[in-house]
């Protein structure tokens, strides 16, 4: 009897962390116990993107989408769904707007607006099985390039597709390859994949490598063919053990199948790939720093030019692209540039993967066509703001990006519109914030990150960012002045102009963009010593309402610093100069007499 059902289980980092591997083991055990191994099989896949509710189990052919599956649910899934065809309702996804169970993934708002090109195989194939990749056109694009196209034709196709670098800056990929191909012809060259994903909250590249490693290997080989390189290096952070494992398996399989190595598909083209591990420094995502780190030197950037295409790894011409950029290449070759450049906007073609995080109902990995609006992402795919709160801002581009606010909700998202709005595409982190987020505090968070990650080579970044952080800290502690706000702006502009590399040049963006969009909040912190979101602890004031206070003394007894005075059955008072804003009194009061201002 042929296999009639596939049980797809996510084996990505997110779902593995919530023990999807035990779910897999239990499902297999139950299949065996019921003699169903020739009727249904379990397939471990990459990320489905719906990480908020992992582990995810998807039943094929009916596309039933089970969320938060525990090992003990395996028995019910097999006995009810697989044997009797009855869906296990309690495990189905519940739509946040209607509170109804959603029968399958086709009916989930989360997937309706998505267009999956880079993520085409994630959550669909077993990433550790090269044959499943081949069944989905894996290595077909490489074969086509090697046998039917010249390197110049491939580059022309990529240029025509309008693909731009997905790492953040959006440089046209075809042009980058062309420069590398014409640079020092005949010499040893290298293809590098930048998998040093460092933005807080970003996990696009990791999920891609975990879910579909072969597409990246294939695209790197295509790049090698185009620029005249026979060796590729993937720079990946050591803190991505699963992605590293999947890549190792994929490279080994590709070599065994003759799809990497010498004389690939009998064409005489040679290409090998090795992994290089990074220690997780944010600056090593910058291409010159990345190359130095791979050479065994300090991960510090150098001035460009020379660009890596002229003198990169071991001073040889080197092409560096981001993981997601490579993931698009095989599709462009297979389906043609004209197919690809119909998706997206005039200047930004194709799709973009975002790691949607923060205060939205559906946190996860999404891929959307360029030109989609923030409103569609947050309210349709993301399922709206958690707890029905009010939307305040979206942070895109991580520590190098900025905030978009309500007035940008209907702006079509592409490289240029985001820059125009004072943010940037970045690698694709998207953090949604609601009314409870303080924008000064957000800027401070990112600056704290940059200060820690600055390599210290140039003064504007090393000292300038530290000063910015100090001023921000002063403001959040209620000690800021209007002069400080002016200095924030001036210093930010100086750092932008004077810093050596991309990290420093973009590090003041979170400050500038929050100042531009939320100037009122900054002024409030300075003049009224007030934080409207209640996030800046030092600006909080606990006040006792004398009309409600019964004089029970519970708060005075609980206060660790003795800031509350008053006698029994008379209203108490908090001495603001002694108060350390710990909130203990607020929790202890049984009458709701204490409020936070």
């Amino acid at each position: 009897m042929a296999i009639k059902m596939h049980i797809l289980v996510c084996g990505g980092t997110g779902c593995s962390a919530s023990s999807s591997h035990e779910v897999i083991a239990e499902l297999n055990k139950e299949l065996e116990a019921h003699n169903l191994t020739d009727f249904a099989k379990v397939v471990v896949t990459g990320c489905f993107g719906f990480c908020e509710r992992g582990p995810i189990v998807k039943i094929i052919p009916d596309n039933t989408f089970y969320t938060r599956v525990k090992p003990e649910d395996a028995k019910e899934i097999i006995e009810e769904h697989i044997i009797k065809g009855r869906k296990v309702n309690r495990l189905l996804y519940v739509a946040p707007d209607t509170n109804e169970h959603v029968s399958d993934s086709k009916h989930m708002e989360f997937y309706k607006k998505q267009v999956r090109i880079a993520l085409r195989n994630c959550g669909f194939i077993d990433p550790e099985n090269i044959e499943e990749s081949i069944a989905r056109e894996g290595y077909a694009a490489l074969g086509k390039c090697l046998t039917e196209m010249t390197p110049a034709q491939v580059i022309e196709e990529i240029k025509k597709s309008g693909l731009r670098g997905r790492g953040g800056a959006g440089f046209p990929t075809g042009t980058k390859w062309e420069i590398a191909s014409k640079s020092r012809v005949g010499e040893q060259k290298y293809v590098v994949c930048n998998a040093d994903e460092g933005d807080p909250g970003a996990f696009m590249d990791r999920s891609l490598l975990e879910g579909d490693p072969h597409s990246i290997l294939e695209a790197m080989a295509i790049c090698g063919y185009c620029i005249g390189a026979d060796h590729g290096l993937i720079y990946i952070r050591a803190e991505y053990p699963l992605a590293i494992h999947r890549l190792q398996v994929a490279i080994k399989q590709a070599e065994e199948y003759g799809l990497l190595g010498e004389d690939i598909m009998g064409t005489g083209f040679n290409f090998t790939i090795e992994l290089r591990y990074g220690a997780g420094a944010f600056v090593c995502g910058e291409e010159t720093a990345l190359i130095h780190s791979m050479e065994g030197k300090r991960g510090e950037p150098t001035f460009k030019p020379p660009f890596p295409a002229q003198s990169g790894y071991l001073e040889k011409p080197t092409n560096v692209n981001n993981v997601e950029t490579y993931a698009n290449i095989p599709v462009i070759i297979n389906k043609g540039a004209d197919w690809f450049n119909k998706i997206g906007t005039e200047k930004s073609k194709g799709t973009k993967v975002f790691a949607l995080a923060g205060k939205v109902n559906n946190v996860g990995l999404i891929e959307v066509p360029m030109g989609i609006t923030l409103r569609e992402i947050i309210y349709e795919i993301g399922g709206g703001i958690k707890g029905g709160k009010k939307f305040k801002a979206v942070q895109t581009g991580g520590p190098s990006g900025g905030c978009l606010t309500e007035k940008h909700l209907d702006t079509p998202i592409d490289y240029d519109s985001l820059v125009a709005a004072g943010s940037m595409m970045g690698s694709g982190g998207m953090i949604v914030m609601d009314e409870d987020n303080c924008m000064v505090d957000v800027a401070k968070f990112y600056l704290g990150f940059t200060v820690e990650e600055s390599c210290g080579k140039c003064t504007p970044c090393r000292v300038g960012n530290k000063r910015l952080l100090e001023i921000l800290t002063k403001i959040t502690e209620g000690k800021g002045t209007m002069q400080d706000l002016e200095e924030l702006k001036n210093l930010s502009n100086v750092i932008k102009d004077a810093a050596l590399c991309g990290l420093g040049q973009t590090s003041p963006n979170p400050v500038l963009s929050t100042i531009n969009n939320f100037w009122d909040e900054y002024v409030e912190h300075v003049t009224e010593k007030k934080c409207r979101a209640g996030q800046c602890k030092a600006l909080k004031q606990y006040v006792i309402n004398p009309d409600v206070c019964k004089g029970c003394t519970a708060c005075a007894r609980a206060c660790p610093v003795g800031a509350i005075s008053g006698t029994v059955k008379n209203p108490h008072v908090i001495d603001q100069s002694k108060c350390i804003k710990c909130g203990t009194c607020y929790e202890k009061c049984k009458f709701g007499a204490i409020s936070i201002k």
Partner: protein
Amino acid sequence: MEKIKNLADLRKMKEGMLGKMSLRENSNSSEAIIQIKVGMATSGIASGAKETMNYLITELDRRDIKALVMQVGDMGYCHSEPTIEVTIPGKEPVVFGKVDTVRAEEIIDKYIVKGELVEGILPANYRTI
């Protein structure tokens, strides 16, 4: 394991894998192809739904008709088991009762291939969400 020595080898391997992946590929584009649900509750199985389902899968495969055959729970027609629901893209679902392998062949021949209706259609008595 044989090395892939040329593009033809790669294509051959891809073709060889299609059968193993068709279940997933078809479910990916489930709106665009014929869907057949087979009622596989106790009453369905007791009256031979398993044989019907196996027949449908092998026969459709043999005729190279792209279709998604799924088992579902009780559809509520215990008087006419085995029951199957056939949805041709763009058309309303049609439920057929008492479908043994002979009837299944008739349904494939007439309804699925030619679009003609066959005796024994049950009135749809429910709406799915």
